[in-house]
């Protein structure tokens, strides 16, 4: 079998965090790929914040419906047992702590686990959409991102980009490492396939607790 690329390594590892019956919100980009790696037979309720619980796999050509879409406006499937609702309900689910896990992309994560992922002032000003509510309100926040961007680490002592929330994320999964944040401290839990601890340390310029031996990601 062909080895997985960085994005799919990340997605597959994050799928390992999901449990039967969870309500899960996946952001755009790498997070969307997580759904592809849910073990068969495990039932996960995926939420789309435009007002749907029970989104299913990508539709075959010709089976889309104009009033069944995801948060990007793209056609989506609804599984038997799905539910639709208005935006106030949808964000009540998010802010109210009813979403068990949210998986989002990241531009920067600081030493305390605070995430910046919604804007690059002057360059990219799309709007925060639901990101701030998701990071603030979900029970568990997992960031799916490549470890570096153009060779520069995305972990940074203090975010230079505007924060998405002051609430720290719980887990960051990259192709090089799984890093947990608890009580404002970062711990290296796992290294990526074929990655040495020293390599992670060299690319992660934040204070990192390391308990050797650090296991390799099981994917």
């Amino acid at each position, binding site marked *: 079998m062909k080895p997985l690329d960085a994005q799919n390594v990340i997605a597959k590892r994050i799928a390992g965090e999901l449990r039967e019956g969870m309500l899960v919100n996946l952001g755009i980009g790498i997070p969307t790929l997580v759904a592809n790696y849910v073990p068969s037979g495990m039932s996960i309720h995926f939420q789309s914040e*435009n007002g749907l619980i029970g989104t299913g796999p990508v539709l075959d050509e010709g089976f889309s419906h104009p009033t069944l*879409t995801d948060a990007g*406006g793209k056609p989506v499937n*609804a599984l038997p047992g799905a539910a639709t609702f*208005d935006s106030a309900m949808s964000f009540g689910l998010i*802010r109210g702590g009813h979403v068990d896990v949210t998986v989002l992309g990241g531009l920067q994560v600081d030493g305390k686990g605070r995430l910046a992922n919604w804007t690059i002032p002057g360059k990219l000003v*799309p709007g925060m959409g639901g990101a701030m*509510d998701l990071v603030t309100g979900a029970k568990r926040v997992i960031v799916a991102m490549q470890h570096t961007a153009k060779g520069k680490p995305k972990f940074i002592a203090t975010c230079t980009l505007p*924060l998405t929330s*002051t609430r720290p994320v719980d887990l960051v999964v990259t192709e090089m490492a799984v890093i947990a944040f608890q009580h404002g401290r970062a711990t290296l839990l796992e290294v990526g396939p074929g990655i040495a601890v020293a390599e992670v340390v060299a690319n992660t310029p934040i204070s990192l607790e390391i308990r050797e031996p650090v296991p390799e990601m099981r994917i």
Partner: protein
Amino acid sequence: MKPVSVKDAVDLIPHGATVMVGGFMGVGTPERLIDEIVRQGKRDLVVITNDACTPGRGIGKLIDAGLVASAIASHIGLNPRAQQEMLAGRMRVDLVPQGTLIERIRAGGFGLGGVLTLSGVGNTVEEGKRVIEVGGAKYLLETALRSQFALVHAFLADQQGNLAYALTARNYNPVIAMAADTVIATAEHIVPVGVIAPDHVVTPAPLIDYLVVNP
């Protein structure tokens, strides 16, 4: 509820009006009303809506036609034209977290002065807002939003104006239908009273001022 043509409905909207528009990336947006606003050239609009959609669709048509003076929205990233207009200073955009935006509208429609939320505490969203401590936690005071007009799109409307929505086309529609002085609705199908069972009515008829009944 008064039945009206799409032309008469849009005639009610003056230049410079504040207008809430239903829909999420154009899904559930009353396109007939949007097209008529463009045709009549209603300008300097203040639009309150989830997103800027894409050029040529939904709110995107209003932006294409240069009719939007300012927008309150949560996301404009999928409409490059909207981003250009904002960065060039031709259209003012207030970006609001999506959960905060819908809840401000809900507050406006439910007779509340605003809501307290954790979203945005400690980041740029907090700037200029009151922080209120409740039970040891800091919340932002986000004030209620109301508008002169709400443009709503439903799946079914009965001849009294009761509305039911389809799947993800519901989104902001039932919430904005509570928060405007004048509510104008369009529907995919207009059906006799009784076809929408009481349990399935999402927006009760007294909330609807005008229902567009013919082209």
